[in-house]
């Protein structure tokens, strides 16, 4: 790995201990993956900020970094945390305190406290072919695939290392030759809603390992459809990039997506989607005491759709409905009266946190209904919940009736 003079000085500690640590992380990664050099990146996004992931050990590590003078030198946004900074959700006091300490340590390093897994809904939109160092598996896949930016699947610490140095090793998806497809998924079944896109992503993610999937047959998906597709791909598998023919910028045609490479073809029918939906469901008890929507964080359009489903209705008194979004969308949704409609129906719009990274299990819930394939996949392990997976309409029905009736 060839370093420039300034990079060598960074490694030797001329810019302080945190920059030296950051360079050591980037050099180690570069050497493992056979990078020839480091390249500049325009932005970073740091994930893994929940107290569940950091623990006290990680919290102290982050605070030490901040104390030792770590300061980011490029736009560095922060992922979801485990608390809502705008309201008291009655989470345990120690949890809230330590979680806020983690967020503050990173903000002290100059990171921007977006606290969201969808930084692009807050205006952080990398351009086509821009090199970035983002963590948050779902944001990685969105930036690479839908926006055509260039990002490896960074972990929290390596994204921070890029934020502190403005650099990343040149390997993997920063190089043209690694961005071509490996497997063609021919989708012959119409995808009706986010739950269908989620089931497709979850199925393909599990099948594909670390390879690049190409989807053919998607019928004019919306941005939200693609957000759910890639969040499911990234949680059930190790996907960092997908192409959709005629939809994403590097796949104008099937041939273009594969760049002359040989590829495997797999058919997707209603059978595969149904199987996957059943796999994402882990609940048996039809009584639902917790419904959570918004993983990844809801767009304004999703919140508007929820107002249509909830207007004039009432969430069951034994069921809690949380709708997750970020501070920017929440602010706009309050201005537009959407939050009021959801609250009038007995739901709660949350910002900054989500079910997986937060701690709703501390409130005693047992059975979750969600339209999110990512949440359905992680909640049994992260929260200990039994999960019903279905469309947002099914989830709202469950919230109103307190039971899963689909």
């Amino acid at each position, binding site marked *: 790995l060839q370093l420039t003079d300034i990079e060598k000085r960074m490694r030797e500690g001329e810019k302080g201990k945190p920059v030296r640590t950051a360079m050591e992380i980037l050099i*180690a*990664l570069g050497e*493992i993956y056979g990078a020839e050099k480091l390249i500049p990146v325009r932005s970073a996004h740091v*994930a*893994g*900020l*929940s107290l*569940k*992931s*950091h*623990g006290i*050990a*990680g919290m102290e*590590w982050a605070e030490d970094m901040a104390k030792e003078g770590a300061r980011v030198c490029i736009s560095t946004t922060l*992922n979801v945390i485990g608390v809502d900074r705008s309201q008291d959700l009655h989470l345990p006091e120690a949890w809230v305190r330590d979680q806020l300490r983690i967020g503050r340590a990173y903000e002290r390093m100059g990171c921007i406290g977006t606290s969201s897994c969808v930084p692009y809904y807050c205006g952080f939109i990398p351009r086509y072919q821009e090199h970035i160092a983002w*963590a*948050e*598996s779902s944001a*990685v896949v969105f930036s690479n695939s839908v926006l055509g930016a260039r990002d490896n*699947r*960074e*972990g*929290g*610490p*390596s*994204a921070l290392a890029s934020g502190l140095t403005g650099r990343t090793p040149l390997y993997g998806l920063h190089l043209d030759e690694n961005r071509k497809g490996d497997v063609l998924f021919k989708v012959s079944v119409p995808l009706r809603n986010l739950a269908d896109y989620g089931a497709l992503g979850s199925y393909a993610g599990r099948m594909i*390992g*670390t390879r690049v999937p190409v989807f053919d047959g998607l019928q004019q998906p919306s941005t939200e459809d693609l957000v759910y597709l890639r969040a499911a791909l*990234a*949680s*059930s*598998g*190790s996907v960092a990039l997908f192409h959709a023919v005629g939809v994403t910028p590097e796949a104008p045609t099937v041939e273009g997506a594969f760049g002359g490479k040989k590829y495997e073809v797999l058919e997707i029918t209603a059978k595969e989607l149904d199987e996957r939906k059943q*796999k994402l469901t*882990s609940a048996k008890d039809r009584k639902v005491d917790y419904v959570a929507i918004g993983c990844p964080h809801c767009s304004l359009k999703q919140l508007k759709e929820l107002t249509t489903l909830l207007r004039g209705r009432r969430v069951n008194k034994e069921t809690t409905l949380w709708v997750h979004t970020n501070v920017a969308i929440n602010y706009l949704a309050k201005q537009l009266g959407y939050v009021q409609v959801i609250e009038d129906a007995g739901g709660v719009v949350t910002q900054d946190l989500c079910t*997986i990274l937060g701690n709703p299990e501390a409130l005693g819930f047992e059975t979750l209904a969600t339209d999110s394939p990512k949440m359905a*996949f*992680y909640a*049994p*392990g*992260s929260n200990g919940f039994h999960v019903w997976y279905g469309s947002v309409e099914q989830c709202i029905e469950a919230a109103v009736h307190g039971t899963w009736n689909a």
Partner: protein
Amino acid sequence: MRRITMAIILKGRSISKGCAEGEALVSREPIGFNFGIHVIDGAITEYNHELFGKSIKGKILLFPHGKGSTGGSYVVYQLAKNKTAPRAIIAVGAIMGGIPVIDRLEKDPFDLISDGDHVRVDAGQGLVVIDK
């Protein structure tokens, strides 16, 4: 005393240096560390995972590659601090701080290593020794 009748020696690539030995735990499925492992006891908590309920604590862990959440590095750090981490990791593509890690073995380790095998890892030398 363990009776070793045969030892298979494999060369691989050192990712994170260090030596360890112990009982093998094999996962043919990828492992997602964030939300997929309980940091207090090292148990796999991912629903439907082939190792669901088993603990990686103190094992020589063999798995093909990581998956899922990008917060996994912090979880591995926590496991190490809590002393619930595997003693060593054999992977086909992974980097994990502070624990000996080796990958790109000259032969497919999934053909040669089974649950419970006694395995020695010398990541500094890039060597895996399987005692059968």
